[in-house]
């Protein structure tokens, strides 16, 4: 934990407009968590992708369903963790087509998870009770 902030949790309705609000909170979080500013834009993009997916696929844009974003600052010089939870069933993550393969290049979709994997240091998928699918983005704070 750096500067005293340990964790922020945001609970938001499943509406696509909310990603901008989440972004504003992330920008504040970056300052307290000691994430390198040159990475912030790319991590912000990763969070947008994950939040959009949670809203679209996890919660099917049902505004009564909640998306929860946890941002954990972690130790100074250690790792920060960002988790995006939805109320859905998740999906078969082993089975995503690689968007950079020749035959997929002209598909208009399927680049979200791929981009996330490029910009954060580790991605994990996880579930919780009673129901909830989560994607966990790990950020090694020393890296730039």
């Amino acid at each position, binding site marked *: 934990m750096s500067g005293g902030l340990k964790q922020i949790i945001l609970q938001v309705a499943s509406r*696509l*407009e909310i*990603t901008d609000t989440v972004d504003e909170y992330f920008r504040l979080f970056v300052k307290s968590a000691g994430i390198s500013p040159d990475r912030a*834009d790319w991590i912000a*993009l990763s969070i*947008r*992708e994950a939040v*959009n997916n949670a809203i679209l696929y996890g919660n099917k844009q049902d505004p009564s369903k909640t998306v929860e974003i946890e941002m954990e600052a972690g130790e100074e010089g250690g790792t920060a963790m960002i988790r995006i939870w939805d109320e859905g069933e998740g999906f078969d993550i082993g089975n995503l087509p690689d*968007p*950079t393969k020749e035959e997929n*290049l*002209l*598909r*208009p*979709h399927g*680049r*979200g998870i*791929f*981009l996330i994997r*490029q910009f954060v240091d580790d991605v994990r998928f996880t579930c919780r009770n009673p129901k909830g699918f989560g994607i966990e983005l790990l950020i090694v704070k020393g890296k730039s």
Partner: protein
Amino acid sequence: MKFEVLEKGDVTLMNIGGRITLGSGDIKMRDKLLEQLDKGKKKIVLDLGEVSFIDSAGLGELVAAYTSARRHGAQVKLANLTKKIDDLLDITRLSSVFETFDSADDAVKSF
């Protein structure tokens, strides 16, 4: 989001500004482009110099622009990429799909 359509000889130059992201900008870009294709325009340059931000849905729209154009026998080229958009095209290997130019002028002349 900003859209400005200029005629440069037989080339259509579209100056795009603002964000191309899911739910804002993406659909609008598609409509504006189809309008030009329906008019029979065959040579189209998208000037992205003032695009502040793009996400995977925005990249998808660029791809859709490219394929719609091809279906109409037209061609789309990109100009004036910011460093961030350039990086995104590289990372997603879309740089192998698009012809990109440093300036709109260069793109217009290249047809």
